[in-house]
């Protein structure tokens, strides 16, 4: 029974990771969760300087999901290196550093600081950040900028380079294609969807920044469609993210073409979701005489072959 997955030169013991910003740096939950059983941890987004993040309220619950606007609050890359990496190394799992930045130069600098460290096995790039030089528009909605970021970072790392794509675009597959052509090893699909919620008595937004990122089970059908679209456009692995709460959810993502999955919002409800999902996937495979989880991937049975892009136009 093969559960592992290899991305570039890194072997994940299983195909279930915990998503950036939903598991801290692992230290908050080490007494609740056997972290060594996870395929890997994607860290909270790291920027060059520490960030305080946004004012409160930062979160609100919505139907089968939640909106958040944390504002990339993080301790900064230097403190991450001095304080968190030594702790993370003890966990016996793969550590993917997620990087957020407000300029291409900052993405490069943060990655260069982490590249030589053996405690960091790979990178996931959060491109859903405001580009300060371009008036705060998100990098992730500009296909040329996503290409440039990928190209610059690829030149600077030998480790797996994953670009985390935003669904707040017309065709996510176009973005995946440019990542592939500029040398990314994988794409994570999807980041949160822009959403909003209103307090009708105060007639005010329920989170301080008015709009925020929608996550949780509410977005799973969208995430599945985006993974399916992406998988049909690129050959590099797609990491499926969006509302996964159970092993059944994860298997759905594998069937539509995800090579790995990440657990996000579900960690807030049950911090050990990643482990129960990984165990459930294993049992599903054993029950169905599947000797390698990889054999489920992209096995969706459909009546007709469709051009993904055409179907979305």
């Amino acid at each position, binding site marked *: 029974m093969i559960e592992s997955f290899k991305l570039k030169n890194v072997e994940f013991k299983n195909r279930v990771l915990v998503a950036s*910003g*939903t*598991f*801290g740096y692992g230290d*908050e*939950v080490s*007494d*609740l969760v056997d972290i060594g059983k996870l395929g890997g941890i994607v860290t909270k987004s790291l920027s060059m300087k520490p960030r*305080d*993040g946004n*004012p*409160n*309220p*930062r*979160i*609100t*619950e919505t139907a*089968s*999901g*939640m909106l*958040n606007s*944390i504002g990339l*609050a993080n301790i900064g890359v230097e403190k991450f290196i001095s304080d968190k990496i030594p702790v993370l190394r003890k966990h016996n799992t793969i550590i993917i550093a997620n990087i957020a930045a407000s300029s291409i130069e900052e993405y490069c600098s943060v990655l260069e600081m982490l590249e030589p460290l053996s405690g960091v096995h790979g990178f996931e790039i959060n491109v859903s950040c405001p580009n300060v030089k371009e008036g705060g528009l998100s990098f992730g909605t500009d296909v040329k900028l996503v290409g440039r970021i990928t190209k610059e970072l690829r030149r600077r790392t030998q480790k797996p380079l994953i670009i985390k794509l935003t669904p707040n675009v017309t065709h996510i597959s176009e973005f995946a294609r440019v990542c592939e052509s500029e040398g990314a090893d994988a794409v994570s699909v999807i980041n949160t969807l822009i959403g909003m919620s209103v307090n009708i008595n105060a007639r005010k937004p329920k989170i301080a920044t008015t709009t925020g990122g929608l996550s*949780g*089970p509410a977005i799973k059908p969208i995430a599945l469609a985006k993974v399916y679209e992406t998988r049909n456009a690129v050959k590099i692995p797609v990491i499926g993210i969006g509302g996964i709460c159970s092993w059944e959810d994860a298997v759905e993502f594998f069937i539509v073409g995800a090579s790995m999955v990440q657990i996000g*919002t579900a*960690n*807030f*409800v*049950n*911090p*050990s979701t990643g482990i129960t999902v990984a165990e459930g996937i294993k049992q599903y495979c054993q029950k169905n005489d599947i000797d390698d989880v990889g054999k489920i991937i992209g096995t969706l049975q459909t009546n007709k072959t469709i051009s993904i892009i055409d179907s979305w136009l």
Partner: protein
Amino acid sequence: MRQEIVPIHSFECLTNEILELTFTSDYLASVAKPGQFINIRVDNNFPLLRRPFSIFNIDGNKISIVFNVIGTGTRVLAKKRKGDTIDILGPCGNDFLTFANGEYDTAIFVGGGIGVAPFPFLTKHFPSDKKITTYLGARHKELIVTKGLKNVNISTDDGSDGFHGTVLDLVKDDFKKHDYGKTRFFICGPTRMMKAVAEFANNRNSDCYASLETDMACGIGLCQGCNIETNGGTKKYALVCKEGTIFETRTVKLQ
């Protein structure tokens, strides 16, 4: 801290609006301290997120919380029956006893509405060398719970029980009549009430420890959603779930 599925032992109506739910957990009963909270998943699928509840009392391995039905989570919880299970995560947050020792004579407990929740458990375990005076304020008498409290003074907005007015007015009125010596305040309730009481306490050079409530997703520091702005210091924000819920009121901006 642990995540456990625990059986509901009993439900009791403390008033026409306030319910006491008791469940059993050997682990939680052995480690939880007054002022800490548990984060409860009230049902398997809906609502999605856990809901934080102060620990109202611990008796043997029986732990109780109190609530009134105000939203989705409490509505679902109120429909539970003896023998049903709930999914709990805890104990979470810091505790009041950390701040209970020191040089003062009287501990002043102020609870607003369902903010009474942490005080019976705190009363039970409070250092015996301190006197305790308790003030409860609520909109009306069905929101007043005195179970497990000492030296209780009551105020209601509508005058249906005790002093007619706000709990701060009650405190001010009572402080004119009694000399409580050097005081330290322990408060829990709506933010506006806590802000007003904290101002009163801090103005008379009393420390004031407030148990805060914000929307939370995880309750254990993962989501970073429950921030409160600090009054200077090294960080702009603190996390209510992990660095609180109890803060000395001069250190945070109550808004």
